[in-house]
């Protein structure tokens, strides 16, 4: 069997990485909770497996999602990943068909040209050689973009490129060397033997014209093998670990495994699956409006991989979900941050040089045992009215925007609903702000108190005006009543024809609140309500792509002035079309928008307030007039 010592680095690297990936996969699997193990086992023999193969092909190789966001970046990822995949696949087939025997060791396929220098000068072999050159050209074109991107990131339209650490740089250099060295090694060999197709053949002939091709080829074969070997050995400690991790993640996800609320295997797979593509950097308003550029998902995930202290980063985030939505790998970035918020400030661990390879155990978050529950002793059972049809919970935030509960009261009355305003004298907080701060235990106390009041009322439906309350009612309250956000409830009243509304002939742009839209998936009901009563237009940020108002309760670190920077940009962007109303469905958004300079002629309104104006019994001009006379007194 032909052999040459230069293949040794490649072989060592290859077998190491295969063993490593298998071992890593086994450990990941082993550390999963039992239910998740079962999910994956079932998935392996069912549809999830097939789906995953398809998804690995579409996302891992073709990079469809990145293509959608940014075609040049997508092409770069595709040409490298898919090109390399084809090169290996077709190379193996080539060695199998044209080599002297079948079932060759991998190195025979990779270094096929070295062992068969005069192959492919005629017939089928020649066409095949053309194909192989084409693929190499594809990869090299992608590589060229990658190199340009690294030194001049504007070219592919990304504003920022994720920064690299030292080992990543070495790995990156070896990755960059792989294909040029293959090109030169093949070309020299082809030049010496007069073989090769349009790329390696022509380049080979040209080089052989003035260089001793035969002698020159050998060092480049070494370089090719060495760069491959180095790349494989370093792979577990660099971001390129994302390649195997992403495949594992895709299968995990399709089998129904989710990250949960504890650091575990699934979270570990997810952080390793981040390719540092940087797409999350450009969607984050903290970076685009507030010049906070070190907390975005890519940096957070990188910090986790390095076992840095990420507590501050975890807290300095609006939890708006824009990066979750944009991440082409589908990393559950919000839940990942929440895990670290709950964990609190961790004790600083010393990091071992092995940690990149051997971080096998769950670094699980210890419950620090502290309880602040005595602080909640002031909570008394809330008085409730028995048996209303609907219980209305405004929420603390809504109490700061009294226009909303007043509008809701009008709506209930106009529709003739038997309702009780549960927190009319002030509320016990729903608990979500504490949850967002990672204080689940404390939140439990509030949840218990409110749940008790809701149960005792005997109402069948709970309506809230605040998406923040809505989300926690849905997720952490275990209520047997139906929970609706007021936009859903109003939509229902309209559909059931209980609420008669005028058409207002006002132009409206609707802003999806984070917690209601991306957070709870409610996009259509508010739009249906608004279409019913107004001329609803479109902004450049609809539905999943909605902006965050900037006032999020979730950011526990941000300077207030930066919030003003964010909201000014948002309001400017959303009122480009000079709408009469900029509508939202969240008291916090409404309040936050109030910080920005609103263009004359536009007004911020909650959807309930617009609906209240449209109620048939009361002509809208009356309310408007009352408001205007007051305002005129202010503007001197």
């Amino acid at each position, binding site marked *: 069997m032909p052999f040459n010592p230069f293949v040794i680095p490649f072989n060592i690297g290859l077998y190491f990485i295969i063993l490593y990936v298998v071992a890593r996969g086994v450990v990941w699997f082993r550390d999963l909770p039992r239910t998740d193990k079962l999910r994956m086992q079932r998935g392996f023999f069912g549809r999830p497996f097939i789906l995953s193969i398809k998804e690995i092909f579409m996302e891992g190789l073709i990079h469809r999602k990145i293509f959608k966001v940014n075609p040049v970046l997508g092409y770069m990822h595709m040409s490298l990943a898919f090109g390399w995949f084809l090169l290996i696949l077709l190379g193996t087939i080539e060695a199998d068909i044209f080599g002297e025997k079948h079932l060759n060791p991998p190195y025979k396929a990779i270094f096929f040209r070295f062992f068969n220098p005069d192959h492919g000068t005629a017939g089928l072999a020649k066409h095949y050689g053309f194909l192989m050159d084409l693929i190499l050209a594809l990869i090299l074109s992608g590589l060229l973009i990658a190199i340009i991107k690294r030194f001049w990131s504007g070219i592919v339209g990304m504003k920022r490129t994720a920064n690299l650490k030292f080992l990543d740089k070495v790995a990156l250099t070896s990755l960059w060397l792989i294909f040029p060295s293959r090109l030169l090694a093949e070309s020299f060999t082809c030049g010496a033997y007069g073989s090769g197709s349009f790329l390696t053949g022509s380049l080979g002939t040209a080089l052989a014209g003035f260089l001793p091709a035969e002698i020159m080829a050998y060092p480049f074969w070494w370089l090719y093998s060495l760069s491959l070997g180095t790349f494989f050995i370093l792979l577990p400690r660099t971001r390129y670990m994302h390649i195997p991790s992403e495949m594992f993640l895709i299968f995990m996800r399709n089998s129904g495994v989710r990250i949960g609320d504890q650091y575990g295997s699934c979270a570990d797979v997810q952080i390793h699956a981040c390719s540092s593509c940087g797409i999350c950097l450009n969607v984050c308003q903290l970076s685009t409006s507030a010049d906070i550029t070190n907390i975005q998902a890519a940096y957070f995930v990188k910090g986790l991989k390095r076992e840095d202290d990420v507590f501050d980063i975890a807290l300095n985030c609006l939890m708006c979900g824009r990066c979750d939505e944009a991440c082409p790998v589908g990393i559950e970035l919000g839940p990942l941050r929440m895990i670290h918020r709950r964990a609190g400030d961790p004790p600083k661990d010393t990091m071992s040089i092995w940690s990149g390879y051997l971080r096998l155990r769950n670094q699980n978050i210890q419950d620090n045992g502290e309880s602040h529950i005595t602080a909640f002793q002031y909570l008394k059972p809330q008085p409730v009215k028995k048996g209303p049809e609907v219980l209305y919970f405004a929420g603390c935030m809504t*109490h*700061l925007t*009294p*226009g909303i509960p007043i509008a809701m009261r009008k709506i209930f009355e106009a529709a003739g609903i038997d309702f009780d305003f549960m927190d009319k004298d002030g509320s016990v907080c729903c608990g979500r702000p504490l949850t967002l701060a990672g204080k689940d235990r404390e939140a439990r106390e509030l949840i218990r108190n409110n749940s008790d009041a809701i149960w005792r009322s005997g109402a069948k439906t709970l309506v809230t005006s605040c998406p923040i309350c809505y989300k926690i009612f849905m997720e952490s309250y275990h209520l047997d009543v139906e929970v609706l956000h007021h936009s859903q409830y109003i939509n229902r009243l309209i559909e059931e024809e209980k609420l008669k509304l005028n058409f207002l002939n006002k132009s409206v742009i609707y802003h999806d609140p984070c917690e209601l839209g991306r957070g709870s998936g409610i996009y259509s009901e508010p739009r249906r309500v608004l279409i019913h009563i107004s001329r609803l237009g479109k902004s450049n940020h609809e539905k999943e792509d909605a902006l965050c108002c900037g006032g999020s309760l979730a950011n526990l670190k941000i300077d207030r002035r930066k919030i*003003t920077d964010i909201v000014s940009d948002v309001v400017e962007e959303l009122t480009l079309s000079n709408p009469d109303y900029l509508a939202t469905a969240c008291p916090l958004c*409404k*309040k936050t928008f109030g*910080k920005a300079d609103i263009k004359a002629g536009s007004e911020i309104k909650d959807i309930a307030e617009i609906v209240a104006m449209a109620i048939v019994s009361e002509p809208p001009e009356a309310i408007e007039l009352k408001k205007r006379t007051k305002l005129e*007194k*202010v503007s001197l």
Partner: protein
Amino acid sequence: MHNKEKHIVIIGGGTAGCVAAGRLAREGYRISLIEKDKKPGGKINNWYQLFPDRRRSVEVTDYINKEIDHPLIDLMTGTELDKVKYKNGKFSISTGKSDLGQADAVLIATGFDLFDATRKEEYGYGIYDNVITSLDLENMFHSGDILTTKEEIPKRVGIVHCVGSRDEKVGNFHCSKVCCVTAVKQAIEIKEHIPDSEVFCFYMDMRMFGPYYEELYRESQEKWVVNYIRGKVSEVSENIEGRLVIKAEDTLLGKPIRMEVDMLVLMVGMQNAKAGLNLQDKFGIQTGVNGFFRIRDNHYGNNLSNVDGLFYAGTCTAPMNITDTISHARAAAVEITEYLSKN
């Protein structure tokens, strides 16, 4: 060159603009005084009485009107600045209506806007009937009737300090300086009009910075029995009888308070005027973090801008009372005179 050949454009015909115009005209300069409203005088026209001595504001208005009664002052009311060109220290200025020609110096005296109380929705301005601003109350004093919307005499009145000032939630960090003493003055006036009423002021700090302010504050407590509660009002609602329910915290007693009142007066703060901010790009001038125009030096250059030949007077640079505004305007006149004698 004789002073008469020099031309100064003053933007804003409020207290500061008028006082400076009078001084400079008496120095012999030709003045174009641009005022966007129909008459000069600015915000003081809306005020009833002034602190600390409760003199009627018309007396100050009369003083201002006398200041600008000078042949060298060309007062243009209902006029706004349109285009500006700046070259070699000279300004070419036109209004929407006419070309003012070349100006050797420009004085910006665009004043302030009151904070828009609807932005602080939790206080219910524009939502509940009997929530009014300090300005609305002055109007009531003018008309002589302090009545709720149901035409009843309020028996209990709350006054909220720092509305839109010292409030990072609305993006205003600065203290508006005059609202504390305005609250004291208005509390006394309410008691004068309705002797059997109760008045409660909700404050964070009492900032009695000027001469005789502290005395007025003392008088309000001793003679008029105004109640002062240290604590911020967190929210306001309306009960079924239409009375306002205030939630606050008494930070001295460390206790939450709920109180019903018939009327709530919001002490709205000062912000740099929109009309002034619109000039920013035209002149290439800057604002500080508080949103007011940035003066060149905090101690001895508080009439100077970053542009040579461009000066500031009055509340476009910081919150001020009438006394300080007048002094600041006179100082601006001195600065301009000195500048023009050198150039």
